[in-house]
């Protein structure tokens, strides 16, 4: 229908196309008309993304073409393992960003808790950026992984906030320790970096547990693939996991 309307629009000033309109669309079209029609579609396809950049995202809604909607983690490779850290650290940083200074928090939050959570915000941002800079642009997943935090976490409730914090931190700590032992890491400096980030995650897990009056985490090195399954409810971005 759109093709027919487009063709008709072109008929007003072009005898070649006008003659074609009298027949079935696409059956009798001169070379000139064909060229023009091709130009119309090509021009629209090329120029419209620029001209209507704000509207085009509505067109696709395609998870296949939007990097924030879907990503692949190949855990058999060093970049894949680092991307696992990058995805989880983005989740942690986003979680704590909503509890940092300047943001409202759950009623009854203590000064010490607010300070700790704000420090975790800074720490996770720093670790996230460290991993990001270790990955070349073509190697790393999107810088804007998307989450369901707003639907899952009740930031107005102390218990709910800290329970989710513990779930995320326990998983991150176990997963990062597991990643540090991955055979896919073949560069010593990278392995050292992952070990340091894992140590920070363990520290945060224990800090959150202390806020809840619980014992420290007994670290269980876990494969990144299992951790991504544990944390899947928090991610709006979907992941294809290759390897463990």
């Amino acid at each position, binding site marked *: 229908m759109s093709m027919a*309307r487009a063709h008709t629009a072109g008929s007003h000033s072009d005898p070649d196309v006008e003659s074609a309109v009298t027949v079935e669309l696409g059956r009798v079209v001169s070379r000139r008309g064909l060229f023009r029609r091709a*130009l119309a579609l090509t021009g*629209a396809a090329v120029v*419209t993304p620029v001209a209507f950049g704000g509207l085009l995202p*509505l067109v696709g809604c395609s998870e296949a073409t939007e990097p924030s909607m879907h990503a692949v983690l190949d855990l058999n490779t060093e970049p894949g393992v680092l991307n696992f850290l990058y995805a989880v650290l983005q989740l942690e940083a986003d979680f704590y960003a909503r509890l940092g200074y300047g943001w409202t928090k759950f009623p009854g*939050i203590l000064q010490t808790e607010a300070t700790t959570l704000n420090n975790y915000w800074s720490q996770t941002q720093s670790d996230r950026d460290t991993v990001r800079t270790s990955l070349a642009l073509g190697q790393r997943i999107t810088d804007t992984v998307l989450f369901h935090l707003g639907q899952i976490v*009740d930031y*107005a409730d102390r218990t709910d906030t800290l329970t989710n914090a513990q779930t995320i931190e326990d998983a991150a700590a176990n997963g990062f320790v597991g990643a540090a032992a991955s055979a896919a890491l073949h560069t010593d400096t990278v392995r050292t970096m992952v070990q340091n980030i894992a140590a920070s995650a363990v520290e945060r897990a224990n800090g959150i547990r202390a806020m809840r009056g619980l014992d420290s985490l007994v670290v269980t090195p876990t494969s990144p693939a299992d951790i991504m399954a544990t944390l899947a409810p928090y991610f709006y971005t979907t992941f294809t996991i290759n390897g463990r």
Partner: protein
Amino acid sequence: MTRLFLRMATRVPCLRSGLAICLGVSFAACSDTTMPGLIGDGNLTHLRIVNGLYRGANAQSAVGVPIDYLIDSSTADAGVAGLGPNSVAAGDSANGYTAFNRGVHTFFARLAGDTAASANLYTTTDGIPFLPKVYFVGATYYTIVVAGVIPDTGKVPDSAVPVVMIPDDPYPGPRIHNVLQARFHLINAATFADSGGSTESDYVAIYVTPGSTPPADISIYFPLTYASFRYQSQAINLDPGTYTITVTSDDHIIAQQAFTFAEGEVQTLLLWSTGPSPTPSPANHTLTAILDHRYAP
């Protein structure tokens, strides 16, 4: 590039065709069903007038005074006559708002009954009254705060009573775990909240603790938000329930009251100074809750 393409599209028939195709696809592909609608009539704006004005030679002797507030030179409609000290105009609805047409309007605040043309409390740096004009778009909500201290006689110094129109946020809180959260914001209309005796208090800190029992030591808690004098705090989202709101100025408690928030409620808390005092305390400050809106759970 956009302009170039549009110009080309209008002149080159085949490009015009492509434009039609792409526009059609762009608008047809997806729809967002989660966008909340604005509440109220799009042709109307809503104003709520708050009087926190004091008059006196100094902070110790000043007393609250009633005001007239004229909108478009009238106390009728959205304006108000004889609005008492530390109070909110009744408006045309329970939340104190009066609805009136969007567009440009003029604003004139004066001591109640002072009908002189030069009586406007809004003044320039030379102490000369002026008539602010403001354009309001539709479906918006504002609280006008008339607060400060003016001398017993003579000109009103510049900035003693600035024009303050706070854009309110009466929209619903988030829905978490199938519960529509309540929310509130606090407007600081407390002229004497500064513990240093200044009438221009800088800001107050707002603590929210669960339950109706005030915490034994507020200093161990972290304030959820702040509000400068004549301005508002951030909106705080809360699960339905009862909370103790504690307001401090320079780490001293100046107001502490329990409030209950039902599911879907949006409230404005107004902080008042009920009398001048060099030592702000709960004895001379109070919080008033106004239910802005209650959304269906």
